[in-house]
């Protein structure tokens, strides 16, 4: 497999986004964000982000701030992930008039990458 793709999929958020697109074959940006927000392993990993570290230091009463910052971090991470996966031609995009409903679907390169990863038991 292309070493750049291997390097790309070593990022846990990008790998998670890729797996979600693969699993569903097609998914909206809104669904991707919700999926990442609800995934406990992503939440645990993203809590190390500097923005969240600052928010977590706030008193417990300001949970709303933490959730808002987390949502913002997820939004940026997902946008970055889909852009990188698109550049690597593993997924493609169908834009909608509202960005939240942009559709991302797996390409032939993405399916072939999945096959190679499955053979090396990485995905």
């Amino acid at each position: 497999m292309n070493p750049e793709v291997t390097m790309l999929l070593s990022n846990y958020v990008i790998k998670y986004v890729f797996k979600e697109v693969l699993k569903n074959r097609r998914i909206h940006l809104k669904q991707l964000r919700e999926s990442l927000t609800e995934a406990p392993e992503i939440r645990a990993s993203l809590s190390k982000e500097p923005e969240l570290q600052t928010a977590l230091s706030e008193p417990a009463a300001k949970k709303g701030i933490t959730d808002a910052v987390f949502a913002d971090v997820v939004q940026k991470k997902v946008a970055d992930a889909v852009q990188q996966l698109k550049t690597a031609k593993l997924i493609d995009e169908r834009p909608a008039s509202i960005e939240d409903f942009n559709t991302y679907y797996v390409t032939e390169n993405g399916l072939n990458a999945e096959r190679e990863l499955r053979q090396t038991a990485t995905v």
Partner: protein
Amino acid sequence: MSKSYSLMADAVSGVSASGFALSGFIAVGLSLLIALIEIPSKSKSQLRACMGSPSFFYWLVLSFGNVVTTLLAWLAVVKIPASLMPFYPPLAAFFGVFGFETVLKNTNITMFDRGVLTIQNWIEKGANAAVAAAIAKQEDINEQEQDVLIKQLMKLSETEINTRILTKTGDPTAVTNLNAAATASSADPKLYKVFQLVLTLNRSERAALLTHKK
């Protein structure tokens, strides 16, 4: 190699060429059936989205591989009692097609090992090309249908749309959350909720709205 070849020739002697041809024909037909089931299933797309040259090419490659394994399956089929000889062709096709992997692993024709494994790779790559093409074509279909559905639903009042969303989701906070998401996206709340509603429509609801388009 020559020993294996003569072994095969001894085993299948007495079977007519038409028997081989019939089993090959059945194998091609079964390959078509497998492709018609596999591609829509793997692509999560409608059958009409799966019709195209990549799927045709996949069927051709699959047929080639299955015809090869069907011919190899004759080695086992000829050991079945001669009283069942009229059924040898469909049995060879069945074992060849559905025992594809088993036949490959148990063949001792080393000359063909490399070639047969290459066929397997071609089949997987052909399947991925067909699946990817079906996914892309389904997106074309979805996009066209979505435009019509959104146009239809935008004719409703916002109150009617909110009611439909609440009925669909059963979540009393759904409308509030969608309004908030629309604001965060700088999008028209009514349009945002219509987009969301379109995603929740079942097949019969979609069909009803699509047939009533003006």
